[in-house]
């Protein structure tokens, strides 16, 4: 029981710090690609702290304030479903499927809150977010199915265990892995999929009315989000890890490749993005699924 409580405290903290460290590194790396030095490495901490210290002088209703909380709650919940280095508490059969649902809570929470802000930009942003989710969920579901079929389980821990000793799904299911990478990339909203917040189009979309503490929560949520998406990919295709350091290195490698693309591509239009997801990733995922089925 004590162990459970300990894990319940440690796991989110760990997830948060990993996500935060990625945020820190990203700002530095982006800056270097852009031929500049960028902020001090701990700048995101200052930002979050400052936002939390801001005074509130707006109210758009309870739902508006609840949005970020729901988002964070959803993200933390998903953290418990993802096994890292033996830290897996809410395991049980079907947890991969459950995870997929729980991961959507974040977006829905945002949708709830932002929808309450009565700003057309926020509404457009939310509709874009949901549309995009709709777009990448289809290939995601297909590859999850492929992986599940490959390992005959929906238990993430089991999938991770099956990939031990270098038998990664990346090697056995290369096509699914590529699709998985693209989908994870899309889910993180990096360029060219930063359609939801696109400042030049919808002025940061759902976040347009959020400031201060709410924005701070959203930044924290982003850290969790980063962690959840990448950790899921690592668990599914890179065989998880037996200890936290290796897990971190694997996650970082994935994130680093993502950053490379992030800074050199302009963004998609929402319909193009959905079309994109339903075209190549879906087709490739299906091919991969067929390969699995045939094998």
């Amino acid at each position, binding site marked *: 029981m004590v162990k459970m409580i300990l894990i319940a405290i440690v796991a989110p903290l760990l997830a948060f710090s990993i996500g935060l460290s990625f945020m820190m590194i990203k700002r530095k790396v982006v800056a270097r690609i*852009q031929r500049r030095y960028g902020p001090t490495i701990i700048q995101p901490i200052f930002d979050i702290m400052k936002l939390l210290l801001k005074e509130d002088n707006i109210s758009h209703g309870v739902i508006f304030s609840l949005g970020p909380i729901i988002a964070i709650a959803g993200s933390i919940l998903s953290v418990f479903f993802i096994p890292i280095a033996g830290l897996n508490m809410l395991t049980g059969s079907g947890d991969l499927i459950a995870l997929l649902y729980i991961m959507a809570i974040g977006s829905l929470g945002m949708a709830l809150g932002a929808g309450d802000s009565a700003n057309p930009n926020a509404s*457009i942003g939310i509709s874009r977010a949901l549309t995009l989710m709709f777009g990448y969920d289809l290939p995601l579901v297909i590859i999850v199915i492929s992986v599940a079929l490959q390992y005959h389980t929906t238990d993430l821990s089991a999938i991770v265990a099956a990939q031990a000793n270098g038998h990664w799904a990346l090697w056995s299911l290369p096509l699914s892995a590529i699709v998985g990478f693209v989908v994870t990339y899309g889910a993180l909203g990096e360029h060219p999929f930063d359609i939801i917040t696109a*400042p*030049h189009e919808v*002025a940061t979309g759902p976040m347009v009315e959020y400031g201060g503490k709410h924005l701070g929560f959203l930044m924290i949520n982003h850290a969790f989000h980063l962690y959840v998406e990448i950790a899921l990919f690592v668990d599914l295709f890179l065989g998880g890890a037996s200890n936290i350091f290796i897990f971190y290195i694997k996650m970082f490698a994935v994130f680093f490749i993502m950053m490379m693309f992030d800074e*050199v*591509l302009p*963004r998609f*239009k929402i*319909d193009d993005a959905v079309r994109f997801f339903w075209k190549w990733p879906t087709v490739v995922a299906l091919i991969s699924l067929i390969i699995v089925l045939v094998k």
Partner: protein
Amino acid sequence: MSKSYELFIGPNHPGIPGNFSLKIELEGDTVISAKGDPGYLHRAFEKAMEGRYYIQNLALIPRICVPEPDINEAAYAMAVEDLMGVEIPERAKYIRTIVLELARAANYTFWMGGFAGTLGLYTLAQWSFGDRDYALDLFAEICGARVYHMYIWPGGVRRDLPPGWEDKLLGYVKYMKERLIDYDNIFFKNVMFKYRTKGIAVVTKEQAIEWGATGPILKAAGVAQDVRKDDPYAAYEYLDFEIPTLTDGDSWSRAMIRRWELENSLNIIEQAVKKMPKKGPVWEKMPNPLKWYVPEGETYAKVESARGEHGFYMVSDGTGKPYRVAVRGASHTHMFTIAEKVLIGQRLADVSHILVSLDVCPPEIDR
């Protein structure tokens, strides 16, 4: 989704090029009407100029268009010279050409960053704004200010080039040509750029002529109209350069024309530096500023700005202050006659990059 709704883009919106507002009506994600709302940058230039001496206006005119102030200075100076019947010295002509082309190159560099920014590619913005900064430093060396140069004035230019400046300039040109390869790689040859802009916001040749478009919009539609060739001013008649044209008239063509013109400008600078007389006067003596009475008359002086034809209509009543100065900015037509029409039927996501691809410069509209 048949219900239409209104959306204000600007004045405080990153998708708007400057302090300007656009009221668009959307049906779903599609624009069904767009109305520009200018006036946020209205400073009453034309009124203020009537109350100042000819030389005092030197402080005002560059502020009409911020990204490329030199065209205003040149057009103003040309209008005054025209009314006074003054021919400027040869070297001054070349210096003007170099300054104008450097400003054009800087403006296109700046524009490039802004355009990439609207498409979500911030890396190019970071690069090109930083590279433009070197050009601003070059300006500071000849005239003492980075942004508002006040360097070209009636009769020629304000100071001769400082020693060694030409070499620095050529160094910058060389640097920019190297950078252009990087710009091409990250943006102009980028598949996503092509994907986003090809076939968007087409202004056909007929439409461009009918609506009175000038500059890159017209060139992208296939008409080689350029004041530098048609009515050469400064030293353009002595220089060898081509007017680029493309035929599609879409957002992509306009962007490519500007990319092309940027390279063109760099070439013109190299050429002008080579051909420029190495010594000689750079200013034709003008009267005492307080008693600078310009002969009565009306004239229209025009130059080619980065956005199109930029002109000054100047009326003098024979006193020391202009009677009326009317400024023609290319953006005026481009925003209200072209953008408002072209935006209809476009997607919300494209609005901001269409505005930038038409290069709408609000200070030029409001004045």
